[in-house]
């Protein structure tokens, strides 16, 4: 394997509170090769969005990154804000969850799409807007119905998300981070947006980091997956492998709790629609994380030694050069699906 596009080594994101510091993200190791599509899944509060923001360098002001965060050979964690600005939007781009508020309401969409090209590629406004026109066509918003001088409020949610996508890919970035890109949209629109993203990535060969809690989306869109829980990656591997085994009890619980995942779970013959099983308890507050396996207190398979130490992200298997790892002392052995 060549040098990965993105590598997190022992990456933590810390938040100073008073005299103490807490790790929102703790000791994460993750690699992302060029052209790969990585899905990051987890409950709210698991740290998946923070991970994305850390990569973009857009963490809330008080948060600090510790460890390595190598993007194409550059350590983003040590990069000056000025240099980082040259990466953002140019080499890496991000699509946000809420299309209704992610666009500036007082600027026409054309200007918002063109802004990045003017900034990074030094194009004139006219050239950049010509390009914005092409981009709009590309994301399925053809002229003349969708002119550059439309304002966000004149578009529906799905259309706005298309504008967001056009804005993100305007400078042909290497890495596209999509943070729950369809969550806020109608179900019918969700599929269209995902198809659009799929096609665009196929066309451009961009690397994708897709953050979602929708397992169905992950299974369709990604070839690799990382399951996060309480600021840590608890299981990672090829999407198929992880879906097949769900070695970490949390992964299994997560799957059982989602409609898509539950569909994948084995069920007794003759049983009707599978019941969704909620995971008992809540994700521990970052302040209250135990010094041992953070899932132990909610885990159905918990054993005594789970409360002794923090499990490492151990290698389970390697498939097509991609390692399947899980941070569990007692990973589930049985395959969910053969």
């Amino acid at each position, binding site marked *: 394997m060549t040098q990965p596009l993105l590598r997190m080594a022992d990456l933590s994101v810390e938040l100073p*509170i*008073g*005299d*103490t510091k807490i790790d929102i993200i703790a000791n994460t190791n993750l690699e992302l090769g060029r052209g790969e599509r990585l899905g990051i899944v987890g409950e709210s509060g698991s740290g998946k969005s923070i991970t994305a923001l850390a990569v973009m360098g857009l963490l809330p002001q008080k948060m600090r990154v510790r460890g390595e965060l190598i993007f194409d050979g550059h350590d983003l964690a040590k990069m000056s804000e000025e240099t980082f600005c040259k990466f953002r939007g140019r080499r890496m781009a991000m699509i946000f969850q809420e299309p209704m508020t992610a666009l500036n309401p007082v600027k026409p969409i054309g200007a918002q799409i063109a802004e990045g090209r003017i900034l990074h590629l030094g194009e004139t406004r006219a050239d950049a807007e010509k390009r914005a026109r092409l981009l709009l066509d590309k994301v399925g918003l053809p002229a003349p119905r969708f002119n550059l001088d439309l304002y966000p409020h004149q578009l529906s949610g799905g259309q706005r998300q298309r504008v967001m996508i056009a804005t993100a890919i305007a400078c042909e970035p290497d890495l596209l981070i999509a943070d729950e890109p369809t969550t806020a949209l109608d179900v019918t629109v969700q599929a269209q947006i995902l198809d659009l993203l799929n096609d665009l990535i196929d066309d451009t060969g961009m690397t994708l980091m897709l953050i979602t809690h929708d397992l169905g989306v992950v299974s369709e869109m990604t070839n690799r997956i990382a399951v996060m829980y309480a600021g840590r990656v608890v299981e990672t591997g090829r999407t198929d492998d992880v879906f097949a085994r769900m070695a970490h009890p949390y992964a299994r619980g997560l799957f059982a709790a989602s409609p898509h995942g539950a569909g994948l779970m084995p069920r007794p013959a003759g049983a009707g629609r599978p019941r969704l099983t909620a995971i008992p308890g809540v994700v521990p*507050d970052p*302040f209250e994380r135990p010094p041992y396996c953070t899932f132990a207190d909610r885990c159905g398979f918990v054993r005594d030694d789970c409360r002794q130490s923090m499990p490492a992200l151990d290698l389970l298997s390697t498939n097509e050069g991609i390692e399947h790892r899980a941070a569990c002392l007692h990973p589930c052995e049985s395959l969910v699906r053969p």
Partner: protein
Amino acid sequence: MSNASNTAIAAEPGIVVRVLASRNLVIGLIVTFILIAMALVSFVWTPFSPTALNFAEKLQAPSLRHWFGTDNFGRDVLSMIMVGARNSIAVSIVAVVVGAGIGVPLGAVAAARGGWIDGVVMRMSDLAFAFPALLTAVIITAIFGPGAVNAMIAIGIFNIPVFARVTRGASMGLWKREYVQAARCAGRSDTAITALHILPNINHVLLVQVTIQFALAIVAEAGLSYVGLGAQPPMPSWGKMLNDAQTFIYDAPWLAIFPGLAITFAVLGLNLLGDGLRDILDPKVRRQR
């Protein structure tokens, strides 16, 4: 663990804690207290008589004897400012009481009844806002004659639409709430609902507005007496002192400085008090912090 989690876990902190936590409120309370104390003390004691003329000591610069200097009649400026505080406070209190006393019921009725009553009340307040307030106050005092009482009325009139709008705005939303609707269905009169459910829920908004209007009234009173339409001699008033000072500004600048400082100090204190009250009373602001 950390104090942040403690506050998160602890229920609403007590009112004393909240008051002390707001720097604005503490400073505002202190300044307002000094202002009121100054006015009250002036009833029983001032360094010199604020009205007695003493040409032998006219236009003296600030000194140990006359902290703020003397004016062209030889009167002690500090004493005049102390007595002037009385006038400012009295005019402002009445102006706010007039404004709130008429404006709040108007706003409450507008919100409760809606329809044409609401329309009339709001158009009337639009109209009132269209006139530059000072100008109308000048005309009002021209009609009724200058003096502290008429200044109170003139300023009070301009407080009416302010209170009407604030009351209406704050209570409109409440009328749509379930418990209010329920009370209505139960046959409660609008007056009773307003008294029982609406006003108690908007009193923090009104309290904040009262402090703001109080501060504005002090400025307005100073403005009116500056143009000679406020309190009349021998009663000292800050605005008139400023006006009198203007011809002496070359030779006796202290005459122009201290009354202005007094106005600024008073308004600053009341504004801080208003901000502080909003900090601790308005749930929206509290959440933002």
